[in-house]
């Protein structure tokens, strides 16, 4: 501290002597060193006061009292600075924890897109924050059936991510891709209803595809309706269902429906983050997705997903407000 006092006095008296810009510059660099050494604002003022006293032995008492007053009021300023630093350190701890949690979640929810011969599948899932509240689960045991679950936990961030790991294990225990979609939803609904908080809900769309007959069977629990494009009539249909969100009623029942997937057809599964156009009510989001899909239907399913994502991102000025997931199954 004595060293700092001496140097400060030197810089200050140099400046008072000639008012050079270079001494101001030196002074500013010097304060950076003081900050590094954790010199507090009230100490800076005390150093300044002492230096002035030493340079001028005829300083009026009123000026010195003025400095005493400033030291006193700056104590709280110094406390705020320290509090800020300690909160920054805490924030850094939390950030590191989040990063680890994100890595764990990514490992946990890792799922490869299956590549069967007769159908083309694409997927994109982008979290809004670090952790994803959307999840896509594929099951394909290289046999006849392939199934896809697109899930959205109502809520975002860490709580949604924790809930999601449970949904994943629920799906894992069902093991085989040939289960009936309505049965899958009923089983998951009971598990979720029992184990999660009343304020948490999960929407899920479950699709099973029979590779030998090209029949796609689907069921939905309060999920954003999927879009079916019929290549023959060149038109889109909403795959609507009245199934309740998972986790509300233990005895909820779900129905399932079939559709034949012919060459040139495709189905778009998505979460509500895709169609949510908050503050942009002039857009009909589902129409925009239809137009984008139609214009790009010559691309692979994966490329279509990516085009939809990048175009919607542009429409939202690159500020999407929810987790974003699209899956396309294309014949």
């Amino acid at each position: 501290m004595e060293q700092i006092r001496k140097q400060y006095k030197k810089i200050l008296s140099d400046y008072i002597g000639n008012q050079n810009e270079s001494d101001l510059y030196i002074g500013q660099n010097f304060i950076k060193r003081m900050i590094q050494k954790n010199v507090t604002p009230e100490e800076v003022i005390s150093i300044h006061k002492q230096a002035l006293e030493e340079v001028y032995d005829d300083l009026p008492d009123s000026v010195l009292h003025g400095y005493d007053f400033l030291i006193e009021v700056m104590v709280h300023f110094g406390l705020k600075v320290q509090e800020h630093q300690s909160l920054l350190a805490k924030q850094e701890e939390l950030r590191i924890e989040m990063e680890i949690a994100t890595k764990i979640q990514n490992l946990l929810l890792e799922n490869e897109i299956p590549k069967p011969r007769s159908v083309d599948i694409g997927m994109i899932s982008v979290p809004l924050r670090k952790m994803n509240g959307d999840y896509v689960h594929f099951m394909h045991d290289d046999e006849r059936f392939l199934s896809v679950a697109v899930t959205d936990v109502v809520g975002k961030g860490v709580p949604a991510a924790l809930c999601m790991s449970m949904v994943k294990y629920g799906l894992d225990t069902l093991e085989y891709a040939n289960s009936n979609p309505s049965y899958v939803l009923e089983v998951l609904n009971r598990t979720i209803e029992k184990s999660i908080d009343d304020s948490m809900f999960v929407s899920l769309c479950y699709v099973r595809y029979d590779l030998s007959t090209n029949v796609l069977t689907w069921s939905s629990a309060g999920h954003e309706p999927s879009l079916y494009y019929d290549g023959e009539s060149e038109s889109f249909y909403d795959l609507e269902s009245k199934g309740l969100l998972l986790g509300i009623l233990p005895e909820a029942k779900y129905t399932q429906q079939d559709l034949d997937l012919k060459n040139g057809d495709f189905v778009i599964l998505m979460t509500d983050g895709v169609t949510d156009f908050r503050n942009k009510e002039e857009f009909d989001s589902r129409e925009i997705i239809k137009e984008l899909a139609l214009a790009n239907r010559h691309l692979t399913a994966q490329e279509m997903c990516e085009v939809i994502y990048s175009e919607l991102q542009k429409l939202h000025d690159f500020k999407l407000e929810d987790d974003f997931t699209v899956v396309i199954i294309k014949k």
Partner: protein
Amino acid sequence: MREARVVEIVTELDIVTARKLGRDEAKEIGFNDVDQSRITTAIGELAKNILLYAHAGKIVIEEVEENGLKGIAISSIDKGQGMKDVHKVLEDDYSSTSAGAGLPAVKRLVDLIEIESRVGQGTTIKVVKWLVRV
């Protein structure tokens, strides 16, 4: 060594009295201007907490000496509602919204803080700042 000085805290004016006594004591012990301000600030925060949460209590200011080291000790004693989670009131993110107003600040201003609190019986906080010549 001088006798301990005691200030009963019942109104806001008593905070000022406690601060004044603390500042004088700190000056006599030999603390520099910045430390005098810090000691006074700590006394002010402790006294304010008494008023806010216990409505009445006292501040005791005394000179202390240990292993040849001089210092000032300030105790805040009240018979208020007490605190359940003492470690929590010392955390920065807790103090701003609830009971421990200013305690993290007090902790930063001094070298040692001891808190004894019993729910329903009251709280005693003792802080010490050592006089270190640099």
